[in-house]
């Protein structure tokens, strides 16, 4: 048994050998809410930006994976057609969700599976706990899954005396370090090999003492550590990449083989799946199993994909439970613009191309969903607890965590127009604050609106601004401005206004008969 403290919100270390009271590696305090932690984005980013090593790690990792993706996407002649189809299928799924879910349930049940429905995280956690308990399991093996991250399943199971063992290498690193994931695909992207070696040495009970920091050696240490768990586990917990309504088939896409181990060897399998993960027909897999691997790991196909339909007598788990999870998804679905965030297939391509993510890393987003997709998904998923209610909530800062550069939209395999959704969410946050908080931005925007909605007023304002021409002194620039412009001049000069606005020049130019 491990050091279970019994305090809600304190995450249990999965390692038996960790010395009592030793400092966790994780720089992240254990959040009670996996979708809402830490400071607002600008402050959190300011912190992570100070870590030069982190920026180097992220720069290297995102550049590597961007190049891989670009190369394997470039070799597909019908990539855009696949994106169009993927996007439309997902739109169709959302429009027919009640029917498709009922069909999925019917088909899973017909094949010997048990379907559960969960309104929220607490309900899903309770269902999984009861299933594990019924099997007499005090340990479950886990396939990497965003849905179970989102509901804090591991922490809940720990509080109930059941150890959840993450079997994906990166998730294992994060779990052993008492850390939080910082990337959807590569959760330990913020760790380098030396840190991983130290984490294994201190926290993985059976790590060789002379373990080096060579990635192959580290991976083999994890293989040895987990193999015993796989061979003895009674219960496995997974997520699902796709659920086929017409056949009841579920799909898990992975690389390491830990997924196959979990999905095959234990007697009981519990799969937690967001209600948006559906696709209508088996044939639709021919679209998504082209889009996902190339967008995600930058491979033509990921090493292993497992597909199963209920229970197959004599092969694999003989007891199968599917937990269908809402947890805020219906609130997202109700948003005409934002609902397409539910099309996401969790490939993480948008993180890898995002210039903001590349600098600040995943922890700055304060959610298990970081990056551009997190910036539109997290506030919406937490809408019922205030995630969209304006400046009071930390998640309200997320839609502003983007320059709207559009790189995310370009690479999204299901064409989620993330920039447009960000803009729409900003408007919703602003509207939610109307008549409440005192907002210096609003005053400025209101004044600017009055000036900028009339040519004469704007012309006068421009002329007034030219009076500022003198403030720049000899350099012709302003290097130190009062707030709020000081946020600008901390790292950039401001030009002083010109002696003459364009419209004044143009008036003279026109008077001269258009001659130069």
């Amino acid at each position, binding site marked *: 048994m491990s050091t279970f403290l019994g305090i809600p919100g304190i995450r249990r270390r999965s390692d038996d050998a960790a010395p009592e009271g030793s400092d966790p590696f994780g720089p992240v305090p254990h959040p009670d809410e996996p979708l809402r932690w830490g400071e607002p984005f600008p402050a959190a980013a300011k912190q992570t930006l100070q870590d030069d090593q982190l920026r180097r790690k992220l720069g290297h990792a995102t550049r590597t994976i961007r190049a891989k993706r670009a190369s394997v996407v470039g070799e597909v002649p019908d990539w855009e057609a696949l994106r169009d189809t993927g996007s439309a299928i997902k739109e169709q799924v959302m429009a027919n969700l009640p029917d498709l879910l009922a069909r999925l349930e019917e088909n899973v049940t017909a094949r010997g599976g048990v379907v559960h429905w969960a309104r929220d995280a607490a309900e899903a956690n309770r269902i999984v706990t009861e299933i594990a308990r019924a099997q007499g399991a005090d340990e479950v093996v886990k396939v990497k899954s965003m849905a179970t991250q989102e509901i804090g399943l591991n922490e809940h199971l720990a509080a109930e005396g059941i150890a959840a063992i993450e079997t994906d290498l990166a998730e294992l690193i994060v779990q052993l370090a008492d850390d939080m994931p910082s990337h959807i695909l590569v959760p330990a992207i913020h760790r380098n090999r030396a840190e991983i070696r130290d984490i294994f040495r201190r926290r993985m009970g059976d790590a060789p003492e002379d373990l080096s920091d060579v990635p192959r050696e580290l991976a083999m240490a994890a293989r040895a550590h987990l193999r015993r768990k796989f061979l003895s586990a009674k219960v496995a917990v997974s997520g699902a990449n796709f659920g086929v309504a017409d056949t009841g088939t579920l799909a898990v896409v992975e690389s390491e083989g830990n997924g196959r181990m979990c999905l095959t060897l234990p007697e009981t399998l519990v799969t937690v799946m967001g209600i948006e993960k559906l696709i209508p027909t088996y044939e639709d897999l021919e679209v998504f199993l082209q889009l996902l691997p190339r967008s995600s790991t930058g491979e033509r196909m990921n090493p292993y994909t497992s597909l199963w339909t209920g229970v197959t007598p004599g092969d694999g788990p003989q007891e199968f439970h599917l937990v269908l999870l809402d947890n805020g998804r219906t609130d997202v679905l109700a948003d005409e613009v934002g609902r397409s965030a539910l099309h996401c297939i969790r490939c993480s391509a948008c993180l890898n191309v995002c210039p903001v993510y590349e600098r600040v890393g995943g922890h700055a987003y304060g959610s298990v969903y970081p990056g551009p997709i997190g910036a539109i998904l997290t506030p919406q998923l937490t809408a019922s607890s205030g995630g969209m209610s304006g400046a009071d909530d930390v998640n309200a800062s997320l839609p502003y965590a983007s320059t709207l550069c559009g790189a995310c939209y370009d690479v999204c395999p299901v064409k989620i127009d993330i920039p447009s959704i960000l803009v729409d969410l900003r*408007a919703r946050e602003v509207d939610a604050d109307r008549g409440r908080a005192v907002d210096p931005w609003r005053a400025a925007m209101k004044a600017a609106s009055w000036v900028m909605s009339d040519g004469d007023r704007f012309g006068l304002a421009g002329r007034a601004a030219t009076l500022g021409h003198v403030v720049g002194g000899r350099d012709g620039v302003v290097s130190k401005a009062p707030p709020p412009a000081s946020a600008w001049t901390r790292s950039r000069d401001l030009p002083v206004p010109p002696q003459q606005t364009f419209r004044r020049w143009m008036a003279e130019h026109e008077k001269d008969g258009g001659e130069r």
Partner: protein
Amino acid sequence: MRIALAATCLADTLFPGAPRATVRLLERLGHDVVFPRGQACCGQMHINTGYVEEAVPVVRNHVETFAPVADGAWDAVVIPSGSCTGSVRHQQAMVCRRAGLDDLAATAEAVAARTYELSELLVDLLGVTDVGAWFPHRVTYHPTCHSLRMLRVGDRPLRLLRAVEGIDLVELPAAESCCGFGGTFALKNADTSAAMLADKTANVRGTGAAVVTAGDTSCLMHIGGGLSRQRAGIGTLHLAEILASTREEPTPLPRVRAGATEVTR
């Protein structure tokens, strides 16, 4: 052709060189340039900061000012900015609809259909890539995000620049990476913005260019502000200012801060 110019609020007030050059360039190519005086701003800043309600009058003013283009009063509207053109094309109608102004939205769409970013106007509508310009300096080009990914101007600006006589055009490493401006992002997330800018200016400095150019004065204000603070000795010019430059009337290199002192190159 009769072409109406939307100068953009930022250039009108702070960077008049860009629209002035646009006028000179188009007149040199034999076109009439009209400046509808009612214009002020396209509304992009309000929209992208979330103040859509406040954006409505701004958008209305823009749409109504340029509505005559829909009736054929002018052949086109040109904007020397990728992001403002993007806002006109992809946001204005949405803002009108959101406010329940369906008629205005329809007008906005009609205006947007005849609105061009400068490089689009030159290459697609006027069918010219060699505009007869002369600019004997080393230049690097930053493709702004909205011109690249919202408008898909592609290599049009580069084709125009390559045809400039005397130019030494050098490639900018990681050119397609955002400079970190992002409108009010530069203020609301100033630290992240500055980190992005640092990488952009490092890449610009590595080219040894005398001038960095782009199709947006806003991004240039950001990049130029960083270069100036670093006293990099590299100036910024809008694409129009390079294309307007001729032997007879050359565009001078901008005054920049370099080393510890101000220089004129």
